[in-house]
């Protein structure tokens, strides 16, 4: 094979899955099926007439929503799946970071599993002998190498799996969403190792939702959608197009959802949750009976989080929350530094004097980022009556890339009665692109560098900050 020949070629490849809704699992069913051929079969084309080629030493990524066919594509390269039509031509030895430690046997030691896993990847014993010390060192498990892996922590297990796969001297490396291995330090190490392999001319094909990593690592990006390649080209171009599409798509979904929600509300008013009854028992006897939310959603509302909960007396209701971008347009995705406005629409069924309007932002993994309210901010609203909206405005959004969950609530001044609390109910995203990548916020900060002249005895010894522990 000439060096210029491509490493991977897809030649009009289609992959069809037959979804048997009740596939015969036993001989009896199979026999019955023979006489009743009208079985309930559905076809699903994971890939349809896909052609492309990847040059030797190139790093490409496949992005797209779940179910777009990305993982099937890697499995076709790997040989786990066979194409229904067309051909996949692979030139070189493949190593796959698909499922780390898939071949480990819990009763065998780390050492024995390295040899077993290495041979599953097609290595001979001499090669494994040679790679062994590097693998152990990389996985950072020197002290545990002769212990059965069933006693390993999940982190050690993953590290060992990654170490074996990454050292398998591949010509072609397949990576499926496993860049999130272990702690941050190990992730950095993995990333370095992959970049190192790339430098050495290894062809890399990855499937990832981590667009930042994709941008950093890849020469070319394929956007898969509906079993086809929708767009291919430079990472920045394809990722931008993909994000635009995602934002647009989410908007469409939201509009649809809001419509459905409105319909649902008119058809069947939801029962008030149990908390309402507790709150109601504290209200005076002559107060109107507790009721569920009555207002119809008449405003555009952000996407609702599946785990959202809602409680309150519903004397004043939040009828919707809308997120607005710098231009004042409804949006679901923002860039770091944008002006971000959360517009909270209310419908007060009775006058609420000096209400407390509160919001909270949580990161996707549950971290409480902020939780301001109108009282602590010293913003007094004399009374809520009828309908209107309250804006929570962040001029310079410091959040970095990720999904965030938004809470909105109306309480009385003393924060003792909840009128309407939508807990972790709304979702918005911040697009990647900010220079910072770690944590959740970018603080308004700057750097300054001062060298210290060590010969200058008059300089005072540096004072250390308090250390943890």
């Amino acid at each position, binding site marked *: 094979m000439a060096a210029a020949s491509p490493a991977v070629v897809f030649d009009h490849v289609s992959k069809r899955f037959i979804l048997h809704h009740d596939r015969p699992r036993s001989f009896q069913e199979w026999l019955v099926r023979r006489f009743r051929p009208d079985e309930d079969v559905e076809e699903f084309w994971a890939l349809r007439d896909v052609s492309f080629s990847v040059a030797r030493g190139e790093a490409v990524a496949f992005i797209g929503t779940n179910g777009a066919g990305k993982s099937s594509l890697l499995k076709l390269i790997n040989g786990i799946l066979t194409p229904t039509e067309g051909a996949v031509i*692979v030139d070189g030895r493949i190593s796959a970071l698909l499922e780390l430690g898939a071949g480990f*046997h819990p009763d065998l030691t780390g050492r024995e599993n390295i040899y077993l896993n290495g041979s599953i990847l097609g290595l001979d014993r001499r090669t494994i002998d040679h790679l062994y010390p590097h693998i152990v060192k990389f996985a950072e498990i020197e002290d545990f190498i002769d212990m059965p892996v069933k006693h390993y922590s999940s982190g050690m297990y993953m590290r060992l799996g990654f170490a074996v796969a990454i050292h398998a001297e591949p010509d072609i490396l397949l990576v499926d969403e496993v860049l999130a291995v272990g702690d941050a330090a190990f992730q950095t190490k993995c990333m370095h190792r992959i970049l190192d392999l790339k430098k050495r001319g290894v062809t890399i094909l990855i499937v990832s939702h981590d667009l930042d990593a994709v941008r950093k690592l890849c020469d070319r990006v394929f956007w898969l959608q509906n079993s086809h390649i929708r767009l291919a080209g430079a990472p920045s171009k394809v990722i931008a197009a993909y994000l635009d599409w995602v934002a647009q798509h989410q908007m469409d979904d939201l509009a649809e959802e809001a419509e459905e929600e409105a319909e649902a509300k008119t058809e069947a008013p939801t029962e008030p949750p149990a908390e309402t009854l507790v709150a109601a028992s504290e209200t005076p006897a002559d107060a109107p009976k507790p009721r569920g939310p009555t207002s119809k959603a008449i405003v555009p509302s952000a996407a609702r989080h599946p785990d959202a909960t809602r409680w309150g007396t519903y004397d004043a209701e939040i009828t919707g929350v809308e997120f607005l971008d710098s231009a004042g347009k409804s949006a679901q995705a923002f860039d770091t530094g944008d002006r971000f406005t959360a517009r909270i629409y209310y419908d007060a069924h009775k006058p609420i004097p000096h209400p407390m309007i509160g919001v909270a932002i949580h990161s996707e993994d549950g971290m409480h980022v902020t939780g301001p309210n109108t009282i602590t901010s010293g913003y007094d609203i004399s009374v809520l009556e009828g309908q209107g909206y309250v804006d929570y405005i962040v001029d310079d959004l410091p959040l970095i890339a990720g999904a965030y969950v938004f809470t909105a609530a109306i309480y009385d001044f003393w924060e003792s009665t909840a009128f309407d609390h939508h807990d972790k109910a709304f979702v918005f995203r911040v697009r990647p692109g900010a220079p910072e990548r770690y944590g959740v916020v970018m603080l308004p900060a700057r750097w300054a560098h001062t060298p210290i002249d060590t010969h200058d005895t008059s300089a005072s010894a540096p004072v250390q900050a308090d250390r943890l522990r």
Partner: protein
Amino acid sequence: MSVMVNRARRPRLDKRVGELLRYRELVRNLVIRDLKARYKNSVLGFLWSLLNPLLMMLVFTVVFTVMLPSNIPNYPVFVLCALLPWNWFAGSLNGGINSVVGNANLVKKVYFPREALPLSVVLAQGVNFLLALPALFAMMLVFRIPFTAWLLLLPVVMLVQLVFSLGIALFVAALNVFFRDTGVIMEVLLQAWFFLTPVVYDIMVLPESKLILGHDVDVRRAAFILNPMASIIANYRVILYWGSPPAFDFLIRTAVTSLVILVVGYWFFIRVAGRFGEEI
């Protein structure tokens, strides 16, 4: 550098064998995994490979010398020299049937020639057989059964059994991916097979002429022809217990039958192996 072409076309048998040879290190490690994992969690470890057949021998000896006397001299050796190969065969099938399904996580995630899985089971059971042989030789010494030169044919008989077991194991391993009740059926089948094979009795007790449904049937011959295991077990017994030359014509015929079964089993296996990744 190897170019792999993945397309819908059926793979060729010879190419697959070549690939399997390249993965021999994997087969070796799977065999080691099988053996190590089996003995690691038991106190007596590999002693079980010796103890288990000896205990079974004891049971059959009590049954067939005390309860149902068969008047076979040195019955313990008579039964043990058949029991060991039978255990190898039964173990190969019981293990082989789950070899692909039981490694679903591997099959779905990593590519390697899948036939390595049933092959490693049959080989691991073969190693067990070899480890148990000293127990048999010890029994032969105890009962003063002479070791003859025909013992040198042992590897030949073993090879025939390996070929036959592998063919069946490949077939049932693949079938079990698509029909999960293969295991249940196999259990009954193995039980029947055990009694149809002259393990605890002498093949010579089978009648050469018996009227079945109005037809004169040579039951002994039928057992030999229809059941390769009968011939294989009989050959073990001839060279170990009787110390006499095997019936070469039967041995060759059985070898050919076994080879045919291996080719058919292997052909079936690789014909459907491409679908394991999505069916399992």
